[in-house]
């Protein structure tokens, strides 16, 4: 498009929009001091666009919220970037809004006739904090959940109205689905609507009053806004966005802790821009309630009152030292409290350890969510999607102490990959009281212990095949098994039997040995005559575990028979 055509189009638009042909100028000339408002407009745009994209994926329900956030963060192409821009963009808004506020205060730009613009700005800042609180809980992870519980708890300690405020905020008596739907509605509909109206009014007023020139500058010298101020605005926008983008990439988006767990202790910390209040509560001890509710009111009241007490038209900071000093001191105190809070945490070794454990849990939950999905029963159940979760948990809780190779106080035979396999059976025959077998039991050390089988190697193989066949395995060599039966009848029947349901002499019955039913029966009561009888030190589990649990364990033991360590490793940690 030629410049001429461009001019024509602008002119066409101007007539249709019925706008006055005017060149809004900057009294006293352009400056980088005036860019912050426009940087904020850019950041608001970033929030709106990324927010809309996130809303297309988010599920505001207590069962699905965490899962949908984890899905965006870990599985959507560039989902981490969109989420990171949204989350850290919020922090950027707080920082730039703070600078904008300080600049306005130092310039004395809140003075007549701009008081209303200033007040609307303060309301907008409060809305930003509202966005932060309502947004942080939506992820429904440990961090957002507990931070919200504390924030709502503070509001609930308001005299008289406290319980109603709490109930109104969380949508009833307890945290649940309605908590998320209301904070979501607040975050994506109510607050943006209010914010849009406020921003519009703020911008219209700012434009009507024009830029406040720096004190001492000749305001009568008006320089065109376009492009002299605009280039500064755009440069600042690009610089801030570059920093934001770089930070988001360095953080790979935003963090996400493990799913909310109402039972697990978590070191809840508010978002960084509330840390000064958090620290103030720590410092003030028994006056903490006063600090929590009164200090925001004092800070807010001071900012609102500023144009009313600082009324002299002279805007030179030198003549307004106490006001400029008060604003700067206020932000310095907030900054120091924030630093002190972070420094306190950084010096706490026990906290660092807990945070490390929390981070580990988070990465585990997210890895499982990405690999297996999140059960519809709730994000907490993501941990149960580990392959063979129930089996391995039961084994770890009920069996590992006495049977795991790594257990320090192992009392029984090792149960691990290959348990009940041909090699394992061969090992038993060679050394029943070996350390990996019954060596650590009272039986193994007693007179009653089985003696090593003194047979030729091929006879051992045949016997092993017979015992192996009891489990019902499908890869049995029938000829070997039959030969094994002959050997068994010759060498073993003094103490044992392989007939189904028949106890041996002094030793256990071996019919169905290693089958799922046999394991279930053994786990239920190893002291039965058909199993180890009174010799068994293993407790019975028929009361402690349900039939289903015993069967699940038995299934796991059957699986272990043909498993190797690599199969177990492939399942991942529990």
């Amino acid at each position, binding site marked *: 498009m030629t410049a001429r055509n461009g001019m024509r189009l602008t002119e066409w638009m101007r007539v249709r929009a019925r706008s006055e042909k005017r060149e809004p100028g900057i009294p006293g000339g352009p400056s980088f001091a005036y860019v912050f408002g426009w940087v904020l407009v850019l950041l608001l745009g970033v929030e709106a666009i990324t927010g809309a994209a996130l809303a297309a994926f988010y599920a505001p*329900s*207590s*069962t699905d919220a965490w899962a949908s956030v984890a899905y965006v963060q870990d599985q959507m192409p560039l989902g981490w970037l969109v989420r990171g821009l949204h989350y850290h963009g919020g922090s950027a808004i707080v920082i730039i809004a703070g600078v904008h506020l300080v600049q306005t205060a130092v310039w004395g730009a809140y003075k007549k006739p701009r008081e209303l613009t200033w007040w609307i700005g303060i309301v907008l800042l409060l809305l930003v904090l509202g966005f932060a609180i309502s947004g942080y809980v939506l992820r429904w992870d440990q961090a957002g959940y*507990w931070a919200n*519980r*504390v924030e709502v*708890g*503070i509001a*609930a*300690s308001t005299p008289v109205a406290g319980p*109603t405020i709490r*109930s*109104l905020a969380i*949508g*009833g*008596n*307890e*945290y*649940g*689905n*309605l908590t998320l739907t*209301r904070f979501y509605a607040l975050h994506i509909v109510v607050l943006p609507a209010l914010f849009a109206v406020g921003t519009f009014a703020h911008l219209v007023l700012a434009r009507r009053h024009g830029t406040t020139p720096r004190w001492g500058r000749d305001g009568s010298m008006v320089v065109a806004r376009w492009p002299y101020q605009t280039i500064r605005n755009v440069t600042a926008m690009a610089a801030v966005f570059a920093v934001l983008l770089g930070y988001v990439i360095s953080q790979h988006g935003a963090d996400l802790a493990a799913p909310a*767990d*109402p*039972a*697990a*202790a*978590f*070191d*809840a910390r508010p978002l960084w821009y509330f840390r000064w209040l958090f620290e103030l*509560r*720590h410092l003030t*001890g*028994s006056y*903490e*309630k006063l600090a929590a509710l009164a200090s925001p009111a004092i800070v807010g009241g001071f900012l609102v009152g500023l144009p009313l007490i600082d009324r002299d038209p002279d805007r030179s900071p030198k003549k307004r030292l106490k006001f400029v000093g008060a604003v700067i001191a206020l932000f310095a105190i907030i900054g120091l409290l924030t630093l002190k809070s972070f420094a306190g945490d950084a010096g706490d070794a*026990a*906290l660092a350890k*807990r945070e490390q454990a929390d981070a580990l849990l988070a990465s585990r939950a997210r890895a499982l969510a990405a690999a297996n999905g999140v059960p519809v*029963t*709730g994000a*907490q159940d993501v941990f149960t999607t580990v392959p063979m979760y129930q089996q391995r948990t039961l084994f770890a809780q009920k069996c590992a102490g006495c049977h795991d190779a790594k257990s320090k106080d192992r009392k029984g035979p090792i149960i691990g990959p290959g348990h009940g396999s041909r090699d394992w059976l061969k090992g038993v025959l060679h050394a029943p009281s070996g350390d990996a077998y019954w060596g650590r039991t009272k039986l193994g050390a007693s007179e009653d212990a089985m003696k090593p089988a003194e047979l030729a190697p091929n006879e051992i193989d045949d016997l092993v095949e017979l015992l192996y066949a009891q489990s019902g395995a499908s890869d049995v060599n029938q000829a070997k098994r039959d030969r094994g039966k002959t050997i068994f009848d010759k060498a073993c029947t003094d103490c044992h039997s392989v007939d189904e349901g028949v106890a041996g002499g002094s030793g256990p019955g071996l019919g169905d040995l290693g089958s799922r039913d046999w394991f279930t029966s053994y786990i239920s009561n190893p002291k039965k005559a058909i199993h180890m009888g009174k010799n068994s030190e293993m407790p019975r589990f028929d*009361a*402690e575990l349900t039939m289903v649990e015993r069967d699940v364990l038995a299934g796991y033991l059957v699986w272990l028979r043909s498993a190797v360590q690599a199969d177990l490793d492939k399942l991942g940690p529990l």
Partner: protein
Amino acid sequence: MADEPDRRGFLKVATGVLGGGLGLVVAVPALRMCIAPTGAETVTTPHDPIELGLVERLKVGAPWQRVSVVAPVVKDAWTTARDIVLGGAWLRRTDAKVEALSAVCPHLGCAVGFDETAKSFLCPCHNSKWSESGGLVANTGPAQRDLDPLPIEVHDGRLRLTWVRYKLDIPTREPA
């Protein structure tokens, strides 16, 4: 026209009434609906004691052990779900007695942890501390009372705990 100011005034009022009325017709039902959950029991859990397994899971004389209190059924607005964690409790067994403390901090409801080396309870949010028996250690944090004991009994060799949430941030113990 002589009646023009009257007419104009009437039209102004009429516009206000009509416009305001239209707004109210939409706003009242919307607000009524939005405040409905306030004060209502939107999350319902059975009030019966909750089964926590065999009493043997607690060794006599062992330190406090954290358990998740899992309700068999929880109705949460439009969903109903099984095995939902309501919160945490700390249990211990001394000789014939079983004791339970709510892990909900009486300050603002964070989950309280037990520090085995220091033999004390600690709230990770605002550093309130309690002794091994659950008594508040003065001047450590903002909590105003001892940890809340929960009713627990042994029935048929099984632990049965009654889950109660108490009002937060007050010195006395009142059910929420």
